[in-house]
């Protein structure tokens, strides 16, 4: 089931463009499939971030009403779906598809046609989702045909994402270099495995729910499942913490990898770092078991037994992922104590990791009943932290591994500034929403905004500190948007006319730096034997000696 593309793209004179398009459409080269995922999801991410900024602006100035109030429900759905399922998840799956085989010393991805098929299915679903939302579909939509279309499109998107994740997981499990045990797998590949396994078991549950909702909506009855608003009620678990944390786990792997590269030393306590990444994968428990696990209100007044009844499952579902993310950030901080070489990937890894940590902490806090945060802007803040954290990490991954895809480097200072701007913007967009949630500003995963009272409820006439927080959040959205667009333009320009990269531009430790830049279609001329987790560092140390 391995397909290796060895022929160079053929160049004709008349139909060269068509041939190039056909090459991309039918490609089985994992680097191209990954770049397709990254490119298209990046485009949708920018659109979703722009919509989020627009909604944020609407919240700041409710008098002006920039968008038609009847379109707000669809814009909220576009923002949420676009950021998560059409942006973050495919972007990080794309990075994993493009990088993991190189890191493992494999000549190809396992099931490359499945991954490519997954990409096209996801793209088709993404187009239909946007189309259905434009025509008054989606959660809370008013046109039943397009509500149905939204549900079916979401199922297509889920099938596409699961196909990509399955391909990544199978690659890590079956296509490692000789001598590379799972303990010697690079951090990013390990995190991609954990994230992929989580996606493989969680997204089908969401898909099953959406199928039931589709049938209930298509064949309406007196069912509680039939209404267009039941989507927000029954499928919301796929859009909230801790389920969404699964998509961002590769950000943790990137942080650990770039931290080790930056200090040019072997990471200490490697096993603990791997375990911490795996612990973050405990986020799978809540959505898979449909176990939100809330600490009830007034728990302090309950008996000891009831407190334990609440605390133990809460710790399992929310505490373990938080502990895992904290462990990764601590391991990276420990590595970075010795004079790191500052670079765009390191800045992105750090800011992305910190935002994911913020999201994991917010996820736990959101489920403490006494804080009363459910239904407030706190949920939106947590969502923004995980999405923007993951996106900043994806930008770092592009800057880090780009040389292996197109053989050229990005300008270090400009790319560093842009990822810093995106990271700061992400913090600015999410943190004020978390604080606003603590101040009881309302919010929801899929708010239904109608002309009349509901509109006032969702966009209260904020004054004082809440108005300031909304303004800060808007600035954060705009910063992310500007940084993402500028970074994408810089990446495209660098891929064509950037400085030629050496084979090992970052003085790396793992196998991807042992091949040429750009890597050939089949990655490595020879399969390498690996005797440690840092095979390239071994070689360099021996050469120095």
């Amino acid at each position, binding site marked *: 089931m391995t397909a290796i593309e060895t022929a160079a793209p053929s160049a004709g004179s008349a139909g060269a463009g068509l041939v190039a398009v056909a090459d991309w459409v039918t490609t089985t080269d994992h680097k191209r499939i990954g770049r397709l995922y990254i490119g298209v999801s990046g485009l949708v991410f920018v659109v979703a971030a722009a919509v989020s900024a627009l909604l944020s602006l609407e919240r700041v100035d409710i008098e002006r009403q920039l968008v038609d109030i009847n379109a707000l429900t669809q814009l909220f759905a576009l923002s949420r779906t676009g950021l998560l399922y059409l942006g973050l998840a495919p972007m990080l799956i794309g990075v994993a598809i493009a990088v993991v085989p190189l890191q493992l010393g494999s000549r190809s991805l396992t099931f490359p046609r499945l991954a490519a098929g997954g990409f096209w299915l996801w793209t088709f679903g993404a187009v239909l989702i946007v189309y259905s939302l434009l025509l008054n579909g989606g959660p809370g939509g008013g046109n039943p045909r397009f509500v149905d279309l939204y549900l079916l499109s979401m199922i297509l998107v889920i099938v596409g994402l699961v196909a990509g994740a399955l391909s990544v997981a199978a690659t890590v499990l079956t296509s490692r270099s000789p001598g590379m045990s799972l303990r010697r797998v690079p951090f990013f590949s390990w995190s991609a495995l954990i994230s992929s396994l989580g996606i493989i078991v969680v997204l089908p549950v969401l898909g099953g729910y959406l199928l039931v909702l589709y049938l209930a909506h298509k064949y309406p009855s007196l069912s509680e499942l039939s209404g267009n608003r039941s989507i927000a009620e029954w499928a919301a678990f796929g859009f909230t913490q801790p389920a969404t944390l699964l998509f961002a786990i590769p950000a943790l792997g990137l942080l650990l990898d770039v931290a080790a590269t930056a200090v040019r030393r072997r990471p200490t306590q490697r096993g603990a770092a791997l375990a911490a990444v795996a612990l973050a994968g405990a986020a799978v428990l809540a959505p898979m078991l449909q176990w939100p696990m809330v600490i009830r209100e007034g728990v302090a007044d309950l008996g000891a037994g009831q407190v334990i009844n609440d605390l133990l499952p809460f710790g399992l579902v929310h505490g373990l992922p938080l502990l895992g993310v904290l462990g990764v950030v601590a391991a990276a901080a420990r590595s970075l104590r010795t004079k790191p070489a500052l670079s765009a990937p390191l800045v992105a890894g750090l800011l992305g990791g910190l935002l994911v940590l913020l999201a994991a902490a917010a996820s736990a806090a959101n489920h403490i009943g006494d804080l009363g945060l459910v239904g407030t802007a706190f949920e939106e803040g947590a969502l923004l932290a995980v999405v923007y954290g993951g996106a900043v990490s994806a930008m770092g991954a592009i800057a880090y591994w780009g040389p292996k895809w197109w053989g050229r480097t990005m300008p270090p200072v400009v790319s560093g500034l842009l990822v810093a701007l995106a990271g700061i913007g992400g913090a600015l967009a999410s943190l004020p929403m978390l604080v606003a949630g603590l101040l009881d500003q309302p919010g929801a995963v899929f708010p239904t905004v109608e002309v009349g009272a509901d509109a006032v409820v969702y966009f209260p006439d904020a004054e004082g500190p809440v108005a300031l927080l909304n303004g800060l959040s808007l600035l954060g959205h705009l910063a992310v948007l500007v940084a993402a667009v500028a970074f994408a333009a810089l990446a495209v320009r660098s891929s064509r006319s950037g400085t030629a990269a050496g084979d090992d531009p970052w003085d790396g430790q793992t196998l991807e730096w*042992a091949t040429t830049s750009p890597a050939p279609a089949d990655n490595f001329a020879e399969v390498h034997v690996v005797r440690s987790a840092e095979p390239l560092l071994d070689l*360099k140390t021996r050469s120095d000696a």
Partner: protein
Amino acid sequence: MHALPPAPAPTPRRQVLVGTALACAAGTALMGGMLALWMRFREVYINGPENRWLPEGVVIPEVPSNVMLIAMLPICVFAQWAVYSAKRHDRSHTGVAIGLVALLGVAFINAQAFIWATMGLPIAEGNYSVLFYAVTGVMTVMAVIGVVFSVVVAFRYLGGRSADLELVSAHALYWYSFSVVYSMLWFVVYVTK
């Protein structure tokens, strides 16, 4: 470029088997989630004013549903027989075993269609009917995928790729997983009702 020591070409590491196992995990999660939704609604209805989950007048044909469960045993035995025979390079036995698995798969689909036809339950009847058709429909799709898998394996094996033991093992794994999933469904949908 760094010169790491080369290795001989690695032996394949059961890619199809691992891929099938991951797909089975996804399928089990899909069905598990839908059955969880079923049980949640069942509990609400039974404890609610209606005091019943199965709509009045609806009778589930128990014979075909039980026969479908019983068919899981020979499906697993035949799938394992195919693996056993393939290991011994016994093409005819392997072909017969895979063929029997496919045949039982088709019979499973037929029995499910019979249940739908006999019950005559309109899909727009309420939560029960929506969930019933969603759950049994997904199960039937999984059976169709299994039959197609069996046909593909049979063609590849009998077409000359008799060294491809892994594919026959993956085929068996799929049907084991299918049997487990159907057993869950049978208990939740047809026994507890």
